């Protein structure tokens, strides 16, 4: 854009920095759950995810063995051993004997504790404490140490969540809801859109106005009457009121105004000459629609399909009202909401589940971004 020309280096640099800051704010939150979902569950609570590539360090307290464990060596009394026992995995970076200075001495150095007593703690946890006099008392020396564990990444969280927390099952349920709810409205909307764009009939203008009005009607207006209707139908026919068929139709109904609006504005913009020459050749409206309009409308049909897919996949409200919460029906969003209640502090489960719920939309979004943006522009610039 012309505005940028002739600007100083500083102001151009400023633009790069500003955009970088915006990009950081908009991506770091998502990055946080992706990184956390791959971390060891003990490390998630021990350090922030932004530190996950550094060793996670923590300060701990322990006691050396009591005086009964001492041996005599070269005329001195010696206590030896390893503070981690045998399973040493962590690294000690520093140690100390006072709570106020828990990291007073670097690992490997020899600390002078007074009265000729020395204590050496090595990085692997082994220690040697020597004294010219015999150690006394049945409580060992208090010891503080800063230890670090190497970064540990794992896919365990994904296995846990997919197979024992029920997210895998919910993933299938979400697909079961989403695919039919995306496919069914397309054809219904396309025929209606063609009629509203190219056929003349009384009431057409009113119908278009009604559809534009329905575009913004809050979903909340439909919930209670439909819930009553579904319950009534369920009781009357003796079938369950919360079924996949019910939610497919509900999503179809709620998606139709936007579908018809989007498709109509595209189909109305197709060149008139094509329609007229086809009609002169004796083609009926049905033939024109199937052979000309439908193939030409592919981009807008794709746009709508992406919208509807994302909307249904991400929906929580409709699923909570019209679908049950038993394992064979609960969708991903509802499951994630339930986990937030029952697994509030288990971030390894929450971050992993959240990432699984957003991965499908992200893939759809990145691979089909072009159609998505086109639909967004067509759907809203003209007043929706």
């Amino acid at each position, binding site marked *: *854009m*012309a505005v*940028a020309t002739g600007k100083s280096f500083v102001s151009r640099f400023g633009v*790069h920095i500003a*955009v970088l800051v*915006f990009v950081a704010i908009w*991506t770091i*939150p*998502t990055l*946080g759950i992706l990184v956390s979902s791959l971390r060891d569950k003990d490390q998630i609570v021990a350090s922030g995810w*932004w530190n996950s590539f550094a060793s996670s360090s923590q300060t701990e307290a322990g006691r050396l063995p009591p005086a009964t464990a001492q041996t005599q060596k070269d005329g001195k009394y010696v206590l030896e051993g390893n503070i981690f026992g045998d399973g040493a995995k962590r690294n000690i970076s520093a140690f100390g004997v006072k709570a106020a200075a828990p990291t007073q001495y670097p690992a490997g150095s020899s600390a002078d504790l007074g009265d000729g007593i020395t204590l050496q703690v090595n990085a692997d946890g082994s220690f040697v404490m020597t004294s010219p006099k015999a150690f006394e008392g049945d409580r060992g020396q208090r010891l503080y140490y800063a230890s670090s564990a190497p970064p540990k990444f794992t896919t365990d969280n994904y296995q846990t969540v997919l197979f024992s927390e029920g997210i895998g099952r919910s993933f*299938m349920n979400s*697909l*079961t809801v989403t695919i*039919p709810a995306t*496919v*069914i409205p397309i054809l*219904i909307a396309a*025929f*209606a859109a063609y*009629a509203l764009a190219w*056929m003349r009939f009384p009431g057409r*203008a009113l119908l278009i106005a*009604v*559809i534009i009005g329905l575009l*913004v*009607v809050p979903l*909340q*207006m*439909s*919930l*209670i*009457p439909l819930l*009553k209707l579904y319950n009534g139908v369920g009781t009357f026919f003796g079938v369950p009121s919360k079924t*996949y*068929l019910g939610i497919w*139709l*509900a999503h179809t*109904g*709620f998606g*139709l*105004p936007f579908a*018809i609006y989007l498709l109509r504005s595209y189909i*109305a913009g197709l060149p008139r000459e094509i329609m007229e020459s086809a009609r002169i050749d004796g083609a009926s*409206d049905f033939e024109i629609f199937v052979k000309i309009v439908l193939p030409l409308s592919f981009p807008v049909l794709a746009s709508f399909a992406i919208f509807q897919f994302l909307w249904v*996949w*991400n929906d*929580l*409200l409709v699923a*909570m009202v019209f679908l049950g919460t038993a394992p064979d029906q609960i969708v991903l*969003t509802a499951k*994630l909401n339930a986990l*937030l209640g029952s697994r509030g502090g288990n971030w390894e489960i*929450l971050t992993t589940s*959240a990432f699984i719920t957003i991965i499908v*939309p992200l893939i759809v*979004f990145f691979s089909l971004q072009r159609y998505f943006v086109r639909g*967004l*522009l067509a759907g809203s610039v*003209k007043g929706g």
Partner: protein
Amino acid sequence: MAAQIFSAIFVIIIGVGGCVAYFWGANKLLDLTFPSRGVTGTAAVNNLRRQGLVRPWLFVGPALIILTIYLIYPVIATLWLSFLDRGGTSFVGLANYEWALRDPDLRRSILNNLLWLAVVPAACTFLGLIIAVLTDKIWWGTIAKSLIFLPLAISFVGASVIWKFIYEYRGEGQVQIGLLNAIIQHFGGQPQVWISLPFWNNFFLMIILIWIQTGFAMVILSSALRGIPEETLEAAVIDGANPFQIFWKIMVPQIWGTIAVVWTTITILVLKVFDIVLTMTNGQWNSQVLANLMFDWMFRGGGDFGRGATIAIIIMIAVIPIMVWNIRQANKETGGH
């Protein structure tokens, strides 16, 4: 589970097949009933006319039936239910509306919704506009835009988990694993339980919606900015306007229409905000909003359909001005077509 997948595939086939069969069959039936080929003279003309009368309704019929069941009938029914008692059986007049005027939860929700309305559309539009202008000037702008656009694909529940992790609180002095408290503690501040701070917690919930919707505003406004004639900008540069003057006095006035569309679209979304509040606080700590309150009344203690419907009507009333404006705009545009 296999049965479930099978039934889903079966329904797609039945559903799509049924649609195709209906449209094709109904059309064929019409052609057979009023044949236009093989007859001559006035009969052919009459039949063509009759076909023209019926065929549009065959095309819009299924859509019309579904729209009637799922949207038009419920709107009327909700209005009617708002005058009935909790079970939806006996008429109670304006009792639900009287309750609505007095109920403190509802008043709190309306105030919170107004706060959301004041902040979120403005913030999204403003940030979207700034980012659209800035990204247009740099070579990696397209990549930056896709990354900022990305949260639009994330569900509100997913986004809530993402941000709950950022707001996570641990006692003072402990290792903070939530980014916000870690930053605050790093600079010597006091970690806070952000989502339970009355009043301010509303803003921490709004940030989530702003984070999601800014990408939407950015894409629409970016395309509108591209539509600004180059000459007007060049003329301003020649006249010595600085970048801020160009932005406020040349660019913004030319895209007012688009700004209004973005603003109203986000406004409608804000009125319906539900998932974020449900998952983050469920309305606790004074963060209740209308849509979540309605959901609460629909199911609380077996559900109170009268009061739930009344809350839905309140949301609807807020949407009506935008609806009227949209229909007017559309009528102006389609005019003669």
